[in-house]
């Protein structure tokens, strides 16, 4: 049906799409396909040999918080825990987060930091692309008419990883700034991705390279100065705007602070003796 008609509406958990429909911003003109009722899209698999985890587009946040997945990609489980409420996490899916492609989507910085790939299927076959290419701009993706997101593949990385966001209160908030930091011990690299501080999710190559070359990978520590510098470079990489949720200055400051705090949890500050960390 997807291949034959161009008026098909795809619906997963409905937590973005139904808000628009209820508001009258969107009325499905043609048929609606409830993709979250397709069992294949609700499954996930861990390929030990390849060291990858493949997650079906319709896996929900509640499922991503399950220890079976959370132990493989802790940052994704942490990000999922910050989404909405239990009701929203039971319905909302990773594929829907990608489909909406809001810069504030909580799953997206984790996918970007991990260099995840997105697989799209249509009648003419499937194609797979890096998530950073999939996300084209504010609520704009590389999906073509007739295409469906089927799954996301991420590496299972050895090393600390985490996600943090700031919002106006503790629960039920859209991020005004968010950060995912991943330490890859095997590759001795650091990866950082930022949400809500640009038209789409941003990576921070300068900050990543700086910290990777200053971490002591044996003791998993870093000098306080280098962690500070890391935070500054992250702030520099952000391209925030001022809107009704927050100012650009606050967002720029906040992502740096979040990044430094996350990094410090992985690489304990090892300043000169006696120096405050």
């Amino acid at each position, binding site marked *: 049906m997807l291949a034959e008609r161009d008026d098909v509406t795809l*619906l997963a958990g409905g*937590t973005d799409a139904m808000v628009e429909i*209820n508001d009258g911003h969107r009325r499905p003109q043609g*048929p*609606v396909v*409830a993709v979250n009722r397709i069992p294949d899209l609700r499954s996930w698999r861990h390929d030990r040999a390849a060291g990858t985890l493949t997650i079906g587009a319709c896996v929900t946040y*509640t499922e991503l918080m399950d220890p079976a997945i959370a132990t493989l990609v802790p940052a994704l489980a942490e990000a999922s825990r910050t989404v909405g409420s*239990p*009701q929203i996490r039971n319905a909302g899916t990773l594929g829907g987060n990608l489909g909406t492609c809001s810069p504030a989507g909580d799953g997206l910085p984790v996918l970007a930091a991990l260099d995840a790939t997105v697989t799209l299927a249509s009648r003419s076959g499937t194609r797979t692309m890096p998530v950073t290419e999939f996300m084209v701009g504010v609520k704009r993706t590389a999906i073509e008419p007739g295409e469906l997101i089927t799954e996301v593949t991420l590496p299972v990385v050895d090393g600390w990883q985490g996600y943090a966001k700031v919002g106006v209160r503790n629960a*039920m908030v859209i991020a005004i700034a968010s950060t995912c930091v991943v330490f890859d011990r095997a590759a001795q690299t650091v990866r950082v991705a930022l949400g809500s501080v640009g038209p789409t999710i941003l990576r921070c190559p300068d900050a990543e390279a700086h910290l990777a070359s200053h971490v002591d990978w044996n003791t998993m520590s870093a000098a306080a100065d280098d962690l500070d510098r890391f935070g500054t470079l992250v702030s520099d990489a952000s391209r925030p705007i001022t809107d009704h949720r927050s100012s650009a200055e606050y967002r720029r400051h906040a992502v740096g602070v979040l990044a430094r705090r996350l990094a410090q949890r992985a690489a304990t500050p090892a300043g000169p003796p006696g120096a405050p960390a």
Partner: protein
Amino acid sequence: MSEAEIYRLHVNGERRDVTDSWVGESLLDVLRDRLGLVGAKGACEQGECGSCSVIVDDELVCSCLVMAASAVGQRIVTVEGIAAPGTPSDVQQAFVDAGAVQCGFCTPGLIMAVHDLLDRTPAPTDTEIREELAGNVCRCTGYGRIIDAVQRVAVARTERAS
């Protein structure tokens, strides 16, 4: 699912035909306006308040965000299906006993959320209760008595079990 204005839902153990719905209509509106089940309340219609909470295939969801036609073949439980009239569930009774109901608008959604919470977490801490009920807004009680009601049920169920 094509232009599905006519379909059958499975609500509170009964088959219910929906004959006059529009594609895209929310489960909340279908329950209330087409099936006469007005327990679930609608306020924000954008997933923020939880007053429309129902259980679909064992998952607590906002019925305002479920497209009704997409729930064909799923088990839907509304507050009307929690207990028979005149015989409140333990959670419903505890809300009354603890004074957790004031205007009552949020109550049906909270009853669903609390049943779901206690099924998954039989002995929650106050913090867990607050986190788990973050999607249910109450503008009257300040939540203290709601938490009290949840704890009463948790204690009573544990005592009954031991």
